[in-house]
């Protein structure tokens, strides 16, 4: 067993036993990392309050090969994303990129790019003054790109015709089978997403990019997203 130190983002947590929690993190060196936090729910636990979802932490944990749940030693808060959590739309929409990160991350596999993209995305969302829906779409584009699942980009569509989008590979040109057509505004927004890895480009596409990327993420990862069910419930 070795003691290791890392930065991490809290992806989710579940209660375990009387007072403990099992918390799943995204860590750059370990990818998806599950840790047992004994006594986390005790009123005077120093660890419980910092293990909130989304939090960016510095962890000390005890790694043992072959164990699926490691043991957390200590955690210090680096960023609680207070601005994001204080905005209902952002807090709810941010759950979708967080769930995408959870699903694309692999256990015990370095995920430096994915971790950096998630931290950058959440930081940027806290400052973002536009639509939380558009920002969540940009974050999902960046996370899918870091996971090696970047959608194909077509700069110019066929003359006089809208660019299509296939959930199997991304933007589709003339002759290729597409799941939907992209409005010019959405096509522009998605091209801007591909060019802007550090911050969400200010684009107004009426939230269409979000619908495109949710379809893409669902098809690519062959997964259901609980967060999408809640987003639909709250914002449609």
């Amino acid at each position, binding site marked *: 067993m070795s003691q290791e130190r890392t930065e991490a983002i809290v992806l*989710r947590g579940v*209660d*375990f*036993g*009387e007072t*403990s929690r099992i918390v799943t993190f995204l860590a750059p060196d370990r990818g998806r990392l599950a840790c047992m936090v004994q006594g986390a729910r005790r*009123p*005077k636990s*120093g*660890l419980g*309050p*910092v293990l*909130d*979802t*989304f939090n960016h932490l510095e962890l000390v944990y005890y790694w043992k090969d072959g164990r699926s749940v490691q043991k957390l030693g200590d955690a*210090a*808060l680096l960023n*609680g994303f207070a601005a994001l*959590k*204080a*905005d*209902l739309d952002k*807090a*709810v929409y941010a*759950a*979708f990129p*967080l*769930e995408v990160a959870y699903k694309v991350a692999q256990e015990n596999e370095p995920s430096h790019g994915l971790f950096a993209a998630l931290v950058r995305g959440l930081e940027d969302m806290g400052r973002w003054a536009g639509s939380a829906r558009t920002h969540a779409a940009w974050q999902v584009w960046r996370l899918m790109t870091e996971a090696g699942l970047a959608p194909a980009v077509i700069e110019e569509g066929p003359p006089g015709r809208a660019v299509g989008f296939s959930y199997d590979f991304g933007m589709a040109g003339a002759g290729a089978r597409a799941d939907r057509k992209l409005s010019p505004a959405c096509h522009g927004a998605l091209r801007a997403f591909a060019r802007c890895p550090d911050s969400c480009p200010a684009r107004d596409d009426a939230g269409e990019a979000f619908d495109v990327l949710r379809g893409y993420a669902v098809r690519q990862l062959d997964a259901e997203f*609980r*967060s999408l*069910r*809640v*987003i639909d*419930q*709250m914002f449609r």
Partner: protein
Amino acid sequence: MFLDAPSVERLIEAFRKLPGVGKRSAERYALHLLSAPEEDALFLSEAVRTARERVTTCSICCDLTETDPCALCTASDRDRSTICVVERPAAVMAIEKGGTYRGVYHVLHGALSPLDGIGPDELTVGRLMKRIEAGGVSEVIVATNATAEGEATALYLSRQIGERGIAVSRIAHGVPMGGGLEYADDVTLSHALQGRTRL
């Protein structure tokens, strides 16, 4: 392990469905019940059956109760113009132990948690809104937990109830009584400072 005793396997499986109980704990509980006096085991089974039969949720506050409406909703000395909204029935018990709150409650049975697929429709928000629309409510105190989910729930309720012109307040978060500042974590101290009150 108990291949020749399917009923014991079934008992172990039943215990494994309880939150936080793994295979080994479930086996320990099952073996304890089998070696305990018969009346103890039957008392447990009868207690579970009776509770399941008698306990329901209050049609007003959604708390667990054996009488509908519950005793708190029908008590003549409670202030019905103030509703304290909590996540779980256990929170009602905790606040009642304090003995200072004289209003009534509403139990949501959870908190907004998009990552777990829990939205307003999975909670008792609709019943809370109907209660408020019925009139006579002047303040709603949101006493959800100090977590991302609890905060999101508070923001959502504030948005929904605030539109109806009713005061919405949030319970304070901070240093526990008897707790030394040097042992408080950064997040709690930060909340305590933000929520400071003038003396």
